[in-house]
């Protein structure tokens, strides 16, 4: 029994070391060569998703990118062909769910400076829906928010509510005052929104707006709701003012940052200071450190502890990290350029951030790096070697067979990750590659061309075809064989279908394998296993 206990203790100790070495130890950077990064990247499962920003000319346009968290390999990108100004509205991740206006899949929502809202499928970046809001030089620049099954959007001159399922507008209220980086806050049964006139509005979820306060400066963040009232940090000439409801509680430096609220603690920033305010019984400043910060203040996990990060917006660059219990710590100043985007952090300390040079960085926490320097393979070899030595000393067994089994077991552990990955890739080839496959379709359709037409009240689908090269060829053949009437129109960009079986609507559009084609049906080529889906525009 003592030998067994001793052995268990040794194995637990050693396997714990191996266990720790499996922790994510990630560090890579990627020059996007696509303008600036002015809003925080986000991590969703194993994806790092980031958007770029800039004034665009020629063929350059902003993108939303997805990279593999571990390897940095690009998964997908979505390019806006129409946005030519800075895009600073933070990306919004929404999990799949449903509500009274419909159901939706997991997606990334983005507001653009050309007034568009795009909902992108998280798996491949394809467009699920888009909506258009008003543009007055700029469109959307502030942070959007979710209220149940609706997306609440601070538009250029008002506020809108859009169904998450399909982007249909519930309401749009024009406030006749322009906003800039003016995020919206969802409070109980109302939305709060400030703007460049210093007006603070309360809007009901039916779109009825009431002006609450007029601060006479610029509100460039989502208003903060505390148990003592609404806090706003107002930009005024050469300074800034912090208000609780209509009471001025502090005058601070210029160019306020986008504040962060954590319970009763509020973090502000200016060109002069990083500030901590507590609003438990009364709102008062409890910490202030010299720092130049004007961008997104975020909460991060650093060295295993919760802290607050402030992007340093001067040529020294980097981020200040503070708990306000000691001096502010400067991180990543070696990057050395202006930074306004906040750091995104996972619970286990993976940091993702980008700077005004458009370089994206992903960094494991220092505690992980310092403690675990050995490679996983090395740790496994050490543990396994010790196991071979220790096991025969502890247990009476067939030592020859035991050693052979142990050797095979160790080799299997070492080669397993690569083996499993390669195996998985091969197995995936056996399945349908189309992302638009429906499970109730017959297996005979696998690997063939499928055509789907979504009418208003029904969906008809035809499969098992081969040899068609374009969407038009397949569509014309299938419809003619099945007595489906088609009306087309000739346009400069090619032939369009305006109706199937007399259903006109606003025209018809198609997807190939779940993705919208950038070409017309005459030019859009299809594979031998493509799914072409026609739906009303």
């Amino acid at each position, binding site marked *: 029994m003592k030998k*067994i206990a001793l052995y268990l203790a040794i194995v637990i100790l050693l396997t714990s070391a191996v266990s720790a070495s499996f922790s994510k130890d990630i560090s890579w950077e990627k020059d996007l060569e696509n303008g600036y990064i002015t809003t925080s990247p986000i991590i969703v499962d194993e994806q790092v998703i980031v958007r770029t920003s800039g004034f665009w000319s020629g063929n350059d346009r902003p993108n939303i990118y997805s990279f593999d968290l*571990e390897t940095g390999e690009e998964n997908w990108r979505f390019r806006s062909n129409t946005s030519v100004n800075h895009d600073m509205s933070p990306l919004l991740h929404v999990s799949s769910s449903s509500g009274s206006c419909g159901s939706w899949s997991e997606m990334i929502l983005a507001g653009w400076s050309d007034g568009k809202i795009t909902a992108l499928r998280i798996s491949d970046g394809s467009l699920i829906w888009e909506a258009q809001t008003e543009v007055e030089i700029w469109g959307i620049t502030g942070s959007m928010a979710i209220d149940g099954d609706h997306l609440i959007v601070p538009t250029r001159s008002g506020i809108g509510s859009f169904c998450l399922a399909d982007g249909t507008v519930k309401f749009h209220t024009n406030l006749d005052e322009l906003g800039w980086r003016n995020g919206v806050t969802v409070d109980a049964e109302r939305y709060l929104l400030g703007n460049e006139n210093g007006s603070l509005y309360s809007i009901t979820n039916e779109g009825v707006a009431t002006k609450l306060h007029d601060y006479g400066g610029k509100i460039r963040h989502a208003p903060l709701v505390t148990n003592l009232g609404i806090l706003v940090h107002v930009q005024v000439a050469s300074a800034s003012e912090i208000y609780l409801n209509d009471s001025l509680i502090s005058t601070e430096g210029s160019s306020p940052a986008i504040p962060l609220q954590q319970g009763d603690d509020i973090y502000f920033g200016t060109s002069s200071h990083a500030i901590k305010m507590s609003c438990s019984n009364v709102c008062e400043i409890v910490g202030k450190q010299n720092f130049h910060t004007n961008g997104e203040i975020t909460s991060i996990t650093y060295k295993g502890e919760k802290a607050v990060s402030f992007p340093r917006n001067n040529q020294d660059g980097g981020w200040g990290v503070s708990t306000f219990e000691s001096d502010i710590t400067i991180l990543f100043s070696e990057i050395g350029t202006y930074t306004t985007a906040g750091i995104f952090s996972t619970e286990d300390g993976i940091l993702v951030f980008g700077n005004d040079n458009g370089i994206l960085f992903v960094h494991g926490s220092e505690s992980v790096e310092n403690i675990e320097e050995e490679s996983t393979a090395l740790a496994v070899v050490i543990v396994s070697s010790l196991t071979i030595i220790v096991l025969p000393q502890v*247990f009476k067994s067939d030592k020859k*067979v035991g050693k052979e*089994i142990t050797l095979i077991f160790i080799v*299997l*552990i070492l080669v397993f990750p690569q083996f499993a990955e390669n195996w998985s890739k091969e197995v995936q080839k056996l399945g349908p590659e189309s992302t638009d496959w429906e*499970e109730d379709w017959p297996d005979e359709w696998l690997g063939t061309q499928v055509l789907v037409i979504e009418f208003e009240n029904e969906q008809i689908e035809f499969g098992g075809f081969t040899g068609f090269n374009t969407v038009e060829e397949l569509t014309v053949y299938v419809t003619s064989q099945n007595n489906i009437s088609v009306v087309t129109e000739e346009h400069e960009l090619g032939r369009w279908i305006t109706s199937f079986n007399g259903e006109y609507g606003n025209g018809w559009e198609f997807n190939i394998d779940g993705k919208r084609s950038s070409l017309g049906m005459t030019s859009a080529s299809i594979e031998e296993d493509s799914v072409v889906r026609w739906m009303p525009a």
Partner: protein
Amino acid sequence: MKFNTHALSGLNMVLTDGVHGPSLAPTEMLLLNVGIITVCYALLCKPSLGDKKGIITLTIFTLVAAASRVVLEPFPNVQPLTVMCLLMGACLGARRGMAFAVMATMLSNIILSHGYWTIFQASGWAFIAFIGSKINIVYNNELAMKKLIISSAFLSVLFDWWVSLSVYHFGMSSTEFLIYLLNGIPFDIMHAMASIFTAVWFAPAIVKLLQDYSTPDLQENSVGEADVIIA
């Protein structure tokens, strides 16, 4: 969520993450834990509730089994619990073996995460314990190593496929499920190999431990016991 049986794709998913299906709500999880563990503990210890030595031995063994899943979680699908269940069934009978299997699953999943897959895992290991009680792995106090190795490898793969059914309920076509099973073959091999490793090195000691520390009460009806509980 943690992942121990089959992976969908990708290296990191292979090692740590995966999708089993929706998790249970905290209240449901608490009720499930407390209720099942209490019943199983009684079934495990009965009829030797007055025998402290036997109860302590079984309790510690169950905790070690649960801890082994947690500690070895970074190794893909290395599950010593499979062999432990076989041996518990063989040494102490179907009822105690199955109770042990369910308890070890429930306790370890408190850390590894609960969900519908817990039902499949618990029932899978309970079934293995039941099989262990029927196939005379330990006969006349002798361990039939060859039989143990073959049965543990076979049951490891069978267990993986059974647990994979927990995913099948959530909108998968039969083709997708087949691909999912094929994807998991490296994990099945790993499970089988780990079970052989556990059997070769640990089974003699486990059998000796259970025989040495089990009381006459616990030993009675240990071979060929027929009473079955539903996991």
